[in-house]
């Protein structure tokens, strides 16, 4: 079963503090000190242990730049929030000691306060400043916390666990085809197995070295496709579609089974990076654009469009998992889905009744540009999700 483990929800928040926040906001105690240069006093916000921002005066609605002056010897994170909800208008991550950094915000009518995040102490929220009138500014967004991401991580673990079970059976079938000398059966078994793996896309980092063994490409290896280190799906694809013999490929087939089995065994103990869940919503398809639509990852079967389809499925899974967090935070979410639908339609149109897929090299320029455009627009729509779902301290 999928027990509690290193990567389990229970231990995640602790780990998160060190890893997820360190990138942007390793917080330390702040000491009051002499300020650095102070730009325009009206816009200058001072960070120290006593107050967060201190008294500042309402500014006119519109684009505004605050200058955040960290008068301490430690890094700080400073957010401009709606004090009633805790939603964030703008953030400054990792403001170093004795630095002054701009914080840009589209100010509208409403309530504003600065919140300074210090390690080992409660956040300090400065006084609330009300901007009068009825001017619409940029909307504040409720931060996503590590706690919020625990359930998504749990769901994602379950999804991958199920996928790995299927995958193991499929690669066994693939290896059996090779082992028995029935290469036609092996070719038929290769694609379903590969697509199952590609549907797990979100897990690249979580799979550690397993990914290179199972789905690594020949680029980056001295000798390329002849390198003995070239293993896994693409190596088998290369062999199966370049006339290599069962004898040449049997060891590689068994190797793949062994790697998948090892991954499946290790998976319950492997970490799921909470930041990764959001990042993967666009990174899976970024990889699809870079390696599948270019044809780079076609080692002979001409099925990179099928891989894109599997990547769409993986992306949809993540969106579904994150949906409760995104629905109230990302107004562009319906557009994400409509572009994904459009993309999926274009990909499916290249899957023929015979079961075969159009190789990239045989797509017309028009079809290819339509797919490129649609995937590229989908990526634009997906890009905000990683920013919105980055785990933040509150």
């Amino acid at each position, binding site marked *: 079963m999928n027990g*509690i*483990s*290193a*990567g*389990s929800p229970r*231990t995640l928040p602790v*780990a*998160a503090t*060190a*890893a997820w926040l360190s990138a942007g906001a390793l917080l330390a105690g702040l000491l009051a000190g002499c300020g650095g240069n102070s730009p325009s006093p009206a816009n200058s916000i001072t960070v120290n242990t006593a107050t967060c921002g201190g008294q500042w005066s309402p500014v006119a609605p519109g*684009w505004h730049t605050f200058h955040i002056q960290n008068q301490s010897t430690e890094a700080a994170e400073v957010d401009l929030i709606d004090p009633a909800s805790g939603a*964030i*208008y*703008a*953030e400054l991550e990792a403001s170093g000691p004795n630095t002054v950094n*701009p914080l*840009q*915000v*589209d100010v509208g009518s409403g309530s504003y306060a600065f919140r300074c995040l210090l390690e080992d102490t409660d956040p300090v929220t400065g006084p609330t400043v009300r901007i009068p009138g009825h001017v619409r500014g*940029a*909307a*504040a*967004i409720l*931060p996503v916390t590590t706690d919020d991401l625990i359930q998504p991580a749990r769901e994602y673990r379950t999804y991958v666990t199920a996928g790995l079970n299927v995958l193991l059976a499929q690669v066994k079938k693939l290896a059996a085809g090779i082992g028995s000398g029935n290469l036609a059966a092996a070719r038929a078994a290769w694609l379903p197995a590969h697509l199952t793996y590609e549907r797990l896309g979100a897990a*690249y*980092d*979580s799979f*550690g070295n397993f990914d290179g063994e199972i789905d690594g490409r020949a680029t980056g290896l001295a000798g390329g496709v002849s390198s003995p280190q070239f293993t896994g799906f693409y190596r088998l694809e290369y062999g199966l579609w370049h006339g290599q013999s069962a004898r040449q490929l049997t060891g590689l087939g068994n190797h793949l089974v062994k790697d998948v089995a090892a991954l499946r065994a290790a998976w*319950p*103990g*492997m*970490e799921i*990076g909470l*930041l*990764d869940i959001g990042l993967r919503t666009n*990174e899976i398809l*970024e990889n699809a654009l*870079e390696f599948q639509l*270019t044809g780079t990852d076609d080692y002979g079967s001409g099925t990179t469009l099928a891989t894109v389809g599997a990547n769409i499925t993986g992306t949809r899974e993540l969106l579904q998992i994150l949906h409760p967090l995104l629905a109230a935070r*990302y107004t562009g979410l319906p557009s994400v889905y409509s*572009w994904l639908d*459009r993309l999926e339609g274009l990909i499916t149109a290249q899957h023929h009744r015979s079961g075969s897929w159009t190789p990239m090299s045989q797509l017309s*320029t*028009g079809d290819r*540009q*339509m797919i*490129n*455009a*649609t995937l*590229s*627009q*989908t*990526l*634009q729509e997906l*890009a*905000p999700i990683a*920013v*919105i779902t*980055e785990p*933040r301290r509150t």
Partner: protein
Amino acid sequence: MSEPAGPAASVPAAPSPGSPGHAPASPPSRPAGSSPDDPPVAGPPSGGSGQRPVPARRAFLRGALGVGFAGAAAAGAGAGYAYRASRPIPAAATAAETAQAGVLPAVPFHGRYQAGILPGSQRQTAVISFSVTAAGRGELRALFQTITDRARFLAAGGTAPPVGISAPPSDSGILGPAMEPNGLTVTVGVGASLFDDRYGLAALRPARLTQMQPFPDDNLDPAQCNGDLSLQLNAGSADTVLHALRDITRHTRGGMQILWRIDGFTSPPRPAGTTPRNLLGFMDGIANPDAGSPAAMDELVWVTSSASHEPAWTVGGSYQVIRLIRMLVEFWDRVDVFEQENMIGRRRATGAPLDANSEFAIPNYPVDPSGAVIPLTAHIRLANPRTPQSGSSRILRRGYNYDRGIDDVGNLDQGLIFTCYQQDIKRQFEAVQTRLTGEPLVDYISPFGGGYFYALPGVRNASDYYGRALLT
């Protein structure tokens, strides 16, 4: 089990975007020829008072360059902005300095005509042809509105909107936090293919707009020809051009895809005060109609309301011909300079017609009917024979040099992005090009791409957009 792996083990891998584009090639180190073989110039200095202040007549290859045409260099006026002159025009020397710093003033975006058509060539350009991928008329209109919004913003410069924690930054940042407009102009054209059955625009196709067909001396690569939409970005520096390209494509990914693109540049005048040179080493691009003359432009460049054969929406637009012309520079550099000059019809060092002493002199063909001085097949003579009949075939040329890597035999891929504007492609560009068929120069050049487009009427005001009259 369950030794905490430590989140550090799961540091996210940064995506590794490929670096698109071609490797830039170094320009040849061969110094531009100052040929000692040329006779000393005894005539009036270039741009001297002895010359008429209207456009001098020059070789066909390129457009007027920056301050070079219409005697504007002498006048010290930045001819680039002369016609739309709603703001002060810097003196030539000052303009060069500000161009270096990347702080050319904004070119007003709104107007009856697109702002990038009449001004002379800027330092940098990008010419891009797109396939439109928008689904249906509504998305097509949204695409044109988005392009308009971005062009309006980019031409004015300023600061990109803050995004808080809602999205990645709204701007690429390559121009810094406060973007200088740096003279950016955005010129949008539509190709004949946009008027196929996809958007129901067939009945509105500009009457003279067709796909470019090969001329006898062409070597066209279909992958670098035509397109649904042309975009030309001109500015004082390469970063401004590329910033604009990245901004516009970022906002239009689903609506259009690049079919082909090429970047170009204008060389500084060598020596100072002369017309800039092309990569054959010749000064190039003076014999343009006077872009400062509204009458001349109405006669040669703009489609006006008197053009009864044209759909009404086209008024204020112009036919745009783009020709990507490879120059076989290695071969050219192996040719005797006098042979080069006979092919062009001008002195390489001075730009003077072979029958005169200065760059801006007018060749006198009637006294040389047999071509004893300027051969009958010389490029400038075929392109503009200066007969009463040839006047209406004049075109407004706007050319740029390009340099983009090497070919299969290791030769430099260099040449010319020839762009011209006219009222009627058949009457003008095609007539000129047909006269040039078989000229001796064709052995040293190879047109390989480009296309015909219709440069849209200008965006009149803040509520207008490119192609509004076409799409509503």
